[in-house]
């Protein structure tokens, strides 16, 4: 008896024309973002690369942006969805300013808004393909949280997205402590970004570090990290093992 292969896709819950209107996979992506709380606020680091699959297409993508007066948003994943989120947040902050009531949206509120947006999009099977990191300070209270593309959100003393979860979080869990100074915080972030540079194929050696405190947000100029390649074992690795590689 002959069995013909069915032409129906696996998830046939959706109608025939909906496939072209949903995000199925990301195209231009940013890699990890790493952030931590320090004495005066929050420090965040991200490199400036936008990869198109396995090509490094864009090398000056700013993946961290200020939101309102009190928050800083960093994103990894699809860059176009990040730009869409920035538009939504722009509108949110605008409406907040129009109230002109002396109160402004703090990081906790923005984080909650983002969580709702991400989760609702995910429920419609049309996600914004990003992992977001939201940090800020309002009235002396530091806040650092993260939202993923499926709506998983939590806040912590240090967060990372993507590969940063596997490579940077172990280092942060060991070496982060309360009341880091600015210099120590930057050193710790650089340590994490260096390991990511060595071991993440989509990382590039051009990064920015952003700082947000009660006073406001500053973002550094792009710079590169020093890397060390002079291990003697790298010079002639197969010296003892002739014929291998």
């Amino acid at each position: 008896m002959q069995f013909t292969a069915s032409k129906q896709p696996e998830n046939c819950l959706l109608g025939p024309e909906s496939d072209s209107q949903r995000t199925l996979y990301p195209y231009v992506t940013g890699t990890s973002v790493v952030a931590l709380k320090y004495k005066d606020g929050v420090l965040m680091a991200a490199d400036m690369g936008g990869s198109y699959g396995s090509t490094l297409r864009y090398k000056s993508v700013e993946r961290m942006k200020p939101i309102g007066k009190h928050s800083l948003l960093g994103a990894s994943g699809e860059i176009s969805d990040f730009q869409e989120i920035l538009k939504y947040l722009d509108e949110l902050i605008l409406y907040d300013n129009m109230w002109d009531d002396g109160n402004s949206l703090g990081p906790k509120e923005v984080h909650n808004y983002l969580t709702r947006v991400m989760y609702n999009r995910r429920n419609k099977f049309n996600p914004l393909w990003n992992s977001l990191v939201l940090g800020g300070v309002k009235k002396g209270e530091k806040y650092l949280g993260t939202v993923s593309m499926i709506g998983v959100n939590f806040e912590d003393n240090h967060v990372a997205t993507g590969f940063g979860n596997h490579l940077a979080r172990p280092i942060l869990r060991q070496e982060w402590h309360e009341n880091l100074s600015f210099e120590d915080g930057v050193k710790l972030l650089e340590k994490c970004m260096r390991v990511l540079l060595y071991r993440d194929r989509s990382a590039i050696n051009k990064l920015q570090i952003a700082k947000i405190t009660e006073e406001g947000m500053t973002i550094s100029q792009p710079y590169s990290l020093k890397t060390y390649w002079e291990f003697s074992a790298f010079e002639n690795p197969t010296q003892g093992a002739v014929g291998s590689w």
Partner: protein
Amino acid sequence: MSKSVIETPPKGGFSFDLCKRNEMLSKKGVNPPSFRKTGTTIVGLTFQDGVILGADTRATEGPIVCDKNCEKIHYMAPNIYCCGAGTAADTEAVTDMVSSQLQLHRYHTGRESRVVTALTLLKRHLFNYQGYVSAALVLGGVDVTGPHLHTIYPHGSTDTLPFATMGSGSLAAMAVFESKYREGLTRNEGIELVTEAICSGIFNDLGSGSNVDICVITKGGKEYLRNHLQPNPRTYTSSKGYSFPKKTEVLLTKIIPLKEKVEIIEGGDAMEE
């Protein structure tokens, strides 16, 4: 009508006859049983006088920890040890097999085994099985040519490195190595760094856990530090210990040594065909 095709027995290697049927079954929801893997963090690093290998001690069967204190650092030769990640049966079998081959080779040549010999035997075997023998190994040792450290992947490729990590916890351990490794470490510094890397795997990776095993190999010899660090003791232990209720009373004890029942005939008839 007789069959014109003679059924020849398979020559060796895997027989892929059942693959299509297995695929069809898993599509219908009938999955094969999960096998015992060593979730694992295994590391190796070269220091001043030799190599140090480290491993965690958790073995998992899917989501369950089936062995809380297994041994992942396998003996290959008096001067060569090998850490194994992947399917536990595969790592055990492959290291046992190559260890025996190395011993026979030692008898044949009358010399100490070299790390490259173990490397070549392992990689040839793994390549032959095209990645189906799921064993990812960190091989280290010291021989006449000096200290060596290699990683071997399930498909048969190898790397020669100053420091290496494998297993599900490899990224957590590599984060520690990449930030703290430098050349010319002393023995104690090396052991401390390896312990830190394994602990990073134990606490940040769910597939690794329990204790840290270390093996230090130098020209002089080897030091196998089983359970060098035990950072996961039982949280609550009863100070009273266990007391079992009264068992059945023993009325009579009679021991019959088996030898007396067997008659040993010296110089009897030889076994007939």
